[in-house]
């Protein structure tokens, strides 16, 4: 009895030892040496893998930077500090990244948007929007199930009064929420933005108004009032060209449904 047990033990030990040595030798001779530069770059990045740079994560971005395939100013959470550090490592000049924050283009809060149905299904916006465009009469607006809040790495989004709100003090500007929104009503706006449109409804004015009291009715008053030509009404909904907007506030005074509003986004926490 005992000899058999000992043989079995010895065989397993021997096999493990041989395989272990083989693996060690394998790594020694065939293992890929870790690129020093990639490691150095990776240490500069925040490491939250938000994907704002367009790569699969910080590791991917670091590898692409080391190969010189991309620019060092794409890391939005890291902002200027990271861009400067990366520039120093790579030995090139960098322009600082633009600070952007997420903004939800909807103000269809409870009691303002008409409900066409009571939704009692899977509690995600993606599922809700599959069922006849969601329970709200306005098929463009925020569903308030919080798909954006769920993907936010910075915990900057909360659902309040039936729609999503972005806490711009916490927003890193990574844009993951904009990707997650099945209605595509979250956009990344420059931090110095002075006015935004609180609606995405593309129906004609009368239909939009019927669905939601806060909707943009496409009356074009803002378009006419803007002295800088920064606002255009496209598909019955006002769109601001943030590059042209000076923040004079003329449009805000004109807007009859108060869906054009002045905003002040606080600075990012560094």
């Amino acid at each position: 009895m005992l000899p058999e047990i000992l043989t079995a033990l010895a065989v397993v030990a021997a096999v493990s030892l041989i395989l272990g040595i083989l693996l060690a030798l394998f790594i020694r001779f065939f293992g890929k040496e870790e690129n020093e530069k990639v490691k150095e770059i990776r240490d500069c990045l925040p490491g939250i893998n938000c994907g704002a740079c367009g790569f699969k994560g910080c590791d991917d971005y670091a590898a692409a930077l080391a190969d010189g395939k991309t620019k060092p100013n794409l890391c939005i959470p890291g902002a200027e500090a990271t861009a400067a550090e990366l520039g120093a490592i790579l030995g090139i000049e960098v322009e600082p990244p633009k600070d952007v924050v997420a903004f939800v283009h909807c103000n269809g809060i409870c009691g303002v948007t008409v409900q066409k149905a009571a939704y009692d299904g899977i509690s995600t916006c993606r599922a809700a929007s599959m069922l006849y465009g969601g329970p709200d009469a306005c098929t463009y607006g925020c569903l308030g199930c919080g798909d954006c809040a769920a993907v936010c790495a910075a915990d900057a989004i909360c659902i309040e009064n039936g729609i999503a709100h972005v806490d711009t003090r916490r927003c890193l500007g990574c844009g993951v929420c904009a990707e997650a929104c099945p209605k595509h009503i979250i956009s990344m706006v420059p931090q110095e933005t002075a006015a935004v449109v609180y609606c995405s409804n593309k129906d004609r004015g009368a239909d939009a108004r019927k669905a939601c009291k806060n909707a943009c009715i496409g009356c074009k008053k803002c378009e006419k009032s803007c002295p800088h030509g920064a606002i255009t009404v496209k598909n019955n909904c006002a769109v601001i060209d943030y590059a042209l907007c000076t923040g004079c506030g003329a449009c805000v005074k004109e807007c009859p449904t108060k869906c054009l509003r002045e905003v002040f986004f606080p600075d990012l926490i560094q």
Partner: protein
Amino acid sequence: MEVFKTLIVILLSSVLVNNYVLSRFLGICPFLGVSKKLNQAVGMGVSVTAVMLLATAVTWPIQYFVLDRFGLGYMQTIVFILIIAALVQMVEILLKKFSPSLHKGLGVYLPLITTNCAVLGVAINNITDGFNFVESIVSSLGCGLGFLLAMVLFSGIRSRIDESEVPRPFRGVAITLIAASFISLAFMGFAGIVDKLFA
């Protein structure tokens, strides 16, 4: 001619009749875990096929030239587990060095395969069925293809399930397992077909 006939019978029977996932219930873990999307399912299926071939090519000689010679046949299972695990690790190291793009594609799946029971099952069944080396290789190719087939079929079904309204008590794993059992039932229809092919 006779040899080819045997090989074709082995290939077809391991793809359809003795499908590892659907008839022998091995490799259920990746079958349920990585079958949500078609491209992932295909990636996993191809990786498993490659590893099965490799594992058979290595374990067959070890069984006949090492274990049997020293009367250690009863150590088969544990020795095979160790060898396959080490083998997959070596393949991963090699891929990382020589084909980073392929490593990226298969990267997630290789560690999953390391201790996959389907791979171990193929290596052991080839021995118990008394196949010679060529037959073993063909059989493991068939098993790999059968696994790939099952993965692809099931990923299609799962994408349909995702879009349909499933009654609440059946949501998630429950409906997935029920769907899997239906495909398994369907595959029982192949039983006995292959033997009659060349009769």
